[in-house]
């Protein structure tokens, strides 16, 4: 029972981190038809910049804000200078975003050196609660709450605001949105920036969770996020959180019972989805 509970909590927390990465990927893909292979790089930049700011200022909160701002700025630059020139050409987009991924992770090493950085949770998030004989680690609960909060906030914006309406309409029919007098390019940039900021937030939250951060983890998490996007359905925002939780939980349980197959299990899940339901479990686009 304790093991089960712990694994579930762990899986949920990891799932939320993957969700923060996958949410941006799926929104950007749904709206702009761009699969951003540099998304993991934005995640890693969020992790490094946030951890560094946290270490320098001593405030975890300022570190998080710093990561988000880093994400917004990098998102803006990426959209404007890397993605925009190659809109509409899938092959070029895929190639160029991968190139950006390479540059982003190498630049990390230039700025912060090639070694990993370590991070610990701020004191108020350290330690755990004991309920009966179940130990609940505070920081994991924190990650889960932040993830849920982000999900609810984005979901609220999508459902209840004009800009959210435009984004949802744009996912279905970009031409019509423009024919109704809306400058979709501006919406693209906004969505890209928000997607990048969510990834950066995921990155900085990962620091105290895993204890250390290194440049390669951008790609590691990005692969999980791609799996999530395929399972959840490209372009489906609610799909991304459900699939992320699924992948997080299966990863956590598999890692405990059959550690060697943890990644394989998720991959297999993706393959099955690709064969039988290429539009994803919750998606509408193929």
């Amino acid at each position: 029972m304790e093991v089960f509970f712990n694994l579930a909590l762990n899986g949920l927390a990891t799932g939320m981190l993957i969700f923060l990465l996958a949410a941006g990927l799926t929104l950007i893909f749904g709206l702009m038809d761009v699969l951003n292979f540099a998304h993991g790089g934005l995640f890693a930049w969020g992790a490094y910049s946030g951890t560094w700011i946290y270490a320098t200022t001593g405030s975890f909160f300022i570190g998080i804000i710093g990561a988000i701002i880093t994400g917004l700025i990098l998102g803006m630059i990426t959209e404007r200078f890397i993605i925009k020139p190659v809109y509409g050409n899938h092959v070029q987009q895929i190639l160029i975003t991968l190139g950006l991924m390479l540059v982003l992770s190498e630049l990390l090493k230039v700025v912060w050196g090639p070694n990993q950085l370590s991070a610990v949770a701020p004191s108020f998030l350290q330690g755990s609660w004991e309920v009966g004989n179940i130990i609940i680690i505070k920081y994991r609960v924190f990650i889960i709450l932040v993830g849920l909060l982000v999900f609810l906030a984005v979901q609220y914006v999508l459902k209840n605001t004009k800009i959210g309406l435009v984004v949802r309409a744009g996912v279905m029919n970009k031409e019509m949105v423009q024919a109704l007098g809306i400058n979709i390019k501006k919406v693209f940039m906004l969505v890209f920036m928000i997607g990048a900021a969510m990834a950066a937030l995921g990155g900085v939250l990962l620091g105290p969770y895993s204890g250390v951060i290194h440049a390669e983890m951008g790609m590691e998490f990005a692969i999980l996020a791609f799996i999530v996007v395929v399972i959840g359905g490209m372009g489906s925002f609610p799909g991304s959180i459900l699939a992320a939780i699924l992948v997080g939980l299966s990863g956590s349980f598999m890692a405990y019972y059959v550690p060697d197959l943890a990644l394989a299990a998720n991959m297999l899940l993706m393959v099955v989805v690709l064969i039988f339901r290429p539009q994803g479990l919750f998606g509408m686009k193929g």
Partner: protein
Amino acid sequence: MIKEKKNLFYGLIAVMLLVLPFVYDSRSMIILLTQVFIFAMFAMSYDLLLGYTGIVSFGHAMFFGIGAYTIGIFMKQFEPTVPYFLLAVLVTVVLTAILSYIVGLLTLRLKSHFYAMLTLAFAGLFLVLAEKWRSLTYGNDGFTFRTPEVFRDRFDFYLICLVAMILVFVLLTRFTNSPLGRVLQAIRENEPRAESLGYSVIQYKIIASVVSGVIAGLAGILYSMSLRFVNTSVFTMDITLDALLMTIIGGVGTLVGAIVGAGIIEFAHHWLTQLAKVHWIFERWIILFGIVYILAVMFFPKGIVGTLQNMKKRKKHTVENKDDKNISG
């Protein structure tokens, strides 16, 4: 006539490379060039996908790695003899063919994103497999092994790799100019149109994917034989990135571009890593190539060779146009 000139030029370079070890006896240069040949094969196999069929794979390293590990395991677990070498080649061909067939079947009917993503994830899986299956792979550290007698001499091995590269080049040139290769290019140019002309696009794409996977596997064999060592790095994204950089910077859809690209990247890697002793920034030389790569994708999507060819063609065109005007005027 132009084609003959081109062939003559290629032939000349091939001969020069063949006699090079007899006149310029530098061990490090021979080793470096051997690497270039091996990666040129690998990059050409990548070009068949990207340049000739318009498929983006982010997991090409897995085929390379399968070849590298298969030969290593055979040489280590059995005997470093020619029969076992041949058996390893056969096993590599079968494994890579099956794997590329399955991956292609799963994703090639979907948007290009899926192929890129699935190959990326699959390669990740093989990396984990190589790390975990310690009884065969010795985990992260990898293992050294002995190669059959005939491959031990550096100069002989140089010649073998050169011949292998030339063979792959000739074969792929034939392949891409065959009716089948033309269909592939038609698919790249306009997939719906090729489909409407009655070609089973997916079949052709799968064929390309299989041929490419097998050649990448063979390149992997030569790679680990040149080092007499293999570790998990052969499955990493870096290997795929090498192929990408070489193909894009050299020029997609030209095959020669892949060779030129392999030469540039390998030499740059060699020199710039040496410069790292001067300043650590040179250890991050890959940034430079990342930026060149991004700019190439944006502004010179045809790479060095493609751009040169275009310039030549344009020159020819303008000359022809002038002639036209002379005739009409």
